[in-house]
């Protein structure tokens, strides 16, 4: 079903999906992102962690231009992010995003949430968009909720709808911004299960998350950010068992203690 990126072997190839070069951003005088360099290859799964206020959310929000950067380049699938609205909308069609607070549209049913962008942005015929949406809703295991409104679903169900909604646009990359942070503990697993499945199908993923179990299972690389910088970047095995920087060690000791 993941026609665009279902080749696991692509993960090893060198084709860069996302490239950040010397990315800098300020909120007023506050320097949130400092000289960020990051290359994400097709099919790579990257987990970004770090203390709050370290700039991890801001970084992935720059990728689809929910935040504007002031210096540096962002290149997505060969297309540079400029102020050109055409470029921005083109990139947003190819980059799916899942938010901490789901951000489903409360006035539309689950199915309508999933078909809105395919119909109005991709210009798919309604019937076709609905059929595709039902396929994705089945994959996140809530096809029976298609005609309900988001307000009638649990948090975990809403987040799975949000994932399905993004997938309906058939994106090349998925960005996850703390997708499980607003969920009750018993619902975290159902969302993570869906994300693991997606990762196993070869989707290129950037996840800001504190779920270290998820990072260990699926990540190709873990990135630790602090004070707007990428402090450490490593494969999960070495990252967790043998952190190099003092700041990483401190952070890991704090979150893994209990």
């Amino acid at each position, binding site marked *: 079903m993941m026609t665009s990126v279902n080749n696991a072997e692509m993960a090893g190839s060198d084709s860069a999906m996302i490239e950040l070069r010397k990315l800098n951003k300020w909120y007023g005088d506050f320097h949130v992102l400092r000289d960020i360099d990051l290359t994400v290859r097709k099919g790579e799964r990257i987990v970004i962690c770090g203390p709050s206020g370290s700039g991890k959310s801001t970084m992935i929000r720059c990728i689809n231009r929910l935040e504007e950067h002031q210096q540096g380049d962002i290149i997505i699938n060969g297309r540079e992010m400029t102020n050109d609205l055409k470029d921005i909308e083109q990139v947003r069609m190819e980059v799916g995003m899942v938010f901490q607070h789901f951000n489903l549209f409360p006035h539309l049913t689950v199915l309508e949430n999933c078909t809105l962008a395919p119909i109005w942005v991709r210009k798919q015929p309604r019937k076709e968009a609905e059929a595709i949406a039902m396929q994705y809703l089945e994959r996140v295991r809530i096809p029976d909720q298609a005609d309900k*409104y988001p307000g009638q679903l649990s948090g975990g169900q809403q987040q799975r709808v949000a994932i399905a909604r993004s997938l309906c*646009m058939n994106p090349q990359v998925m960005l996850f911004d703390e997708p499980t942070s607003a969920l009750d503990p018993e619902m975290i697993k159902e969302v993570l299960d869906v994300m693991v499945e997606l990762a196993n199908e070869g989707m290129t993923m950037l996840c800001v998350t504190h779920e270290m179990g998820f990072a260990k299972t699926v990540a190709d690389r873990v990135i630790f950010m602090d004070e707007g910088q990428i402090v450490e970047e490593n494969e999960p095995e070495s990252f967790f068992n043998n952190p190099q920087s003092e700041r990483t060690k401190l952070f890991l000791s704090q979150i893994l203690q209990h």
Partner: protein
Amino acid sequence: MIVNENPVAARPAPASNRGIWGWMRQKLFSSPANTVLTVVTGWLLYIGLTPVISWSFIEADWFGSDRSACDGGACWVFITARIEQFIYGFYPEDLRWRVDLVFLQTGLLLLWLMPQSMPGKKWGVIYALSIFPISSFFLLSGGLGLEMVDTHKWGGLMLTLVLALVGIVAALPFGVLLALGRRSEMPVIRFFCTTFIEVWRGVPLITVLFMASVMLPLFVPEEVVFDKLVRALIGIVMFQSAYMAEVVRGGLQAIPRGQYEAAAAMGLGYWKMMRLVILPQALKMVIPGIVNTFIALFKDTSLVLIIGLFDLLAIVQAGLADPKWLGFAIEGYVFAGFVFWFFCFSMSRYSQSLEKRLNTGHKA
């Protein structure tokens, strides 16, 4: 340690309603003081309301041709004898079928569009926004082979409804555009919309109407001056869109940023985002405010009497001055008041049912 292995099966809630007598005993006669209060209130209502009911219904006279038909009680004959004038103003009698046709279209459209599920609603909307206004315009004012009727002959309820309907239908879209403009990121547009809103909102409607009817002709050449009714309508629409804009802006500001971000992240451009995601939620949220503005607009239409247009209230007032019907001011004002109340209350009820219908049980 407690371990409970016996699940308690769900039971129906206890019945709280023990019938009307139980309710009365509980709410009205629960204590001696409460009983006294109930009796006294009932007695006050009785002595207060009986004369009103008796005056307006029991002793009232309804039909006749002149005041001799009235003996004590309300003289509704004054209304029934003049009802045609109250409805059509000075519209020529033999052409009133044209007004009726517009009324009929309006009524049928309301029946078609207001209920939740009616067939072909989309076509109803298209009809209401294209054929209906054009046909109404020609039916009312003439042209296309129909005899022309000058707008100074329009009056009564018909004029009130024309003013209110045009005002309502035009003020909402203008108001939405102004509200979006005031929140725009483009400084020129934002400045223009803010200035427009603040200027029109800061001026009394009476002044606007005066300017439209008295001062405008002084400043523009005579050939350009257009119909007085049109000028009043433009004034009302400008004025009410400024109010509407602020109501809508309240709704826009209540939409969480996440909704904008989710829509943007999927590649929706500004107008699609507004039309499909933001406005449906924002407008739903401010239905009470929108209807409040509509109701104010409906009643404000009676201000056109100061520029010499005879709306329902003005024509009733004019009727009171008729020497044959002196002394029926109460009946006249009660009637005018009732008609206004009827339309405003209907709008209010409809808005409440709309709110209930659109409630999806979830704030973003």
